[in-house]
């Protein structure tokens, strides 16, 4: 026989807990557990620039693929044992993982450097184009209108 009342009470309890936790969060991305994906097609120049730098800073923050990640388990009783086992396994395989990932880390770092150089060059070129336009067509539309 199903105790619907007890299930109802449990649902209410869970909702109350979640609501309390939700109240403390003011960022949408934290609530949805990830970044908001933006469709870049159709964006104006100003928005694209902002998006580019946001994505770049995300890459910059997460470039280290060797950075340690926490080891957890959702199991109620055997969680501790599982965490200990995972830690042991990770320690055993670290030398091999690092062998591969160190090259990856160098590669990623280099890519981010190139990307940054390209972005900075693009900014400089945009500045020069703007200056040239101002010289040749003083009343030309602003950047956003051009797009």
């Amino acid at each position, binding site marked *: *026989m*199903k*105790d*619907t009342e*007890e*299930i*109802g009470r*449990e*649902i*209410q309890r*869970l*909702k109350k807990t*979640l*609501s309390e*936790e*939700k109240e403390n*969060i*003011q960022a*949408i991305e*934290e*609530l*949805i*557990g*990830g970044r*908001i994906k*933006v*469709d870049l*097609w*159709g*964006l*104006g120049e*100003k*928005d694209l620039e*902002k*998006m580019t730098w946001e994505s770049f800073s995300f890459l910059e923050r997460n470039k280290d693929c060797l950075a340690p990640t926490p080891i957890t388990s*959702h199991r109620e009783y055997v969680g501790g044992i599982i965490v200990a086992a995972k830690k042991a396994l990770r320690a055993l395989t670290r030398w091999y993982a690092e062998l591969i990932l160190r090259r990856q880390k160098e590669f990623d770092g280099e890519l981010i450097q190139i990307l940054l150089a390209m972005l900075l060059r693009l900014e400089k070129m945009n500045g020069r184009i703007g200056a040239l336009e101002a010289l040749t067509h003083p009343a030309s539309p602003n950047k956003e209108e051009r797009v």
Partner: protein
Amino acid sequence: MMAVKDYAPWRRAAEKSPRHFLRLLRRSLARNKAIPQEVLNSLALTVIQTHPSSRVLRFLPRLVQTVAAERGLQSAWNLVASLEVALHHRKPTIGLYDNAAHYIGGAQKYGCTIASALQDDFDITLIANRPVARSQLENWYGLDLSRCRVKVIPIPYFEKKDRLRELIDAGEVDTSQENPFHLISLESGHYDLFINNCMLEMVYPLANVSIFITHFPERGKSRFFYVKKYSQIVANSLYTARWIRQKWDLNPHQHLYPPVDMEAPFVPQEKENIILSVSRFDPGGNKQQLKMIEVFQHISRDQPEKLKGWRLAVVGGSIRDNPYLEKINGHLSRNPSSAIELRTNLPASDLKSLYQKAKIFWHFCGLGQTDPAKVEHFGMTVAEAMQNGCVPIAFRGGGQMEIVEDTVSGFLFSTEKELAEKTLDLIGRPGFLGEMGQQALERGKRFRREVFVDAVQAYVRDLVRAGFSVSLES
């Protein structure tokens, strides 16, 4: 919404054992495999309905914990909220947002009519950004909103002195800064169903089911463009739907014509020789009342015999100190005509009476325009005129082409010459004019409030059935 066949293994797992289902879920989430929220909600409900209470009670906290950890707190909250609705523990809730709710307008009437239509089946909160009382909304639109409540959430960005205008203009938002409408996005996460009635693309919907109502896609895409995140996009006309596709590259799911309730309590018999125009006196002159007056005066000069005994009534709402209205008054003082009547901000009863008396209705909005936003997106007053047996002669463009069936229930025109010919033809054939009036009256019924209410109720019930596995009729 949910393609059942794609999730058959999931459903089997949910039916077999909660543990098996959780394992499958964790594996998928770990691999970043997306599971639509409504599918997740439905599968959790299957577990609850299939297994004994003791297992369900052990399963639920684990499920919620897993979902919160992998998909965020909002997803977990939505899951639990959907279970409450599906198990009939409470009515579903709706948050209906309109940043111009404090302002009288057609789009706002659209939203309030939705609220009024759904208030028996849902707990409805009308979300506004500026103070407005429920009684005001009821008076403005003649609606019963007694089971709805109003919540005012000011947006600090628009409360600053230099931006403190009567209407909140999202076009002023600097997209290189923080999104000021995230306050409303957060609020949307407190409801089962969130309706964005002001086509504000910068509000990110967090509710289980979300509807984006578009009266016209005003702005292009920006960094804060979230229309794609809504479960449903509704357009108020096929014209708007076409521009949503063109401007945003999105396909609306539904189109619902606005509710029009100007029907006469009786079929008007004795009409007068009045050509009527009803439109807001837009300060930019978008509705082209001046052009209309000029055309009428031109026809009167060219064909005085044919227009003898006819008058033009130009009626509409206006703000104080309206430069366009001043322009019209200036023209009329230079070119006076006793056959032209200009009236602003008429009481509803006088307006109704004019609709009942007039034989012909002129509508110029869109004539000579190249900007699609300045063409009538629907054309509410055209439908109002038709509901009173007034034969419309409207510009061939925008939503008017969907209201008026050319030569059947009215006429469409592209040039002033065409308008003059069609008007004179109608005036010269009183029998035909009467017949067309009847046709217009019949056509006008298509846009009645009752039709809108039935369509909204059926549409939202279907959405709830799909999103929450629950039938409101039961």
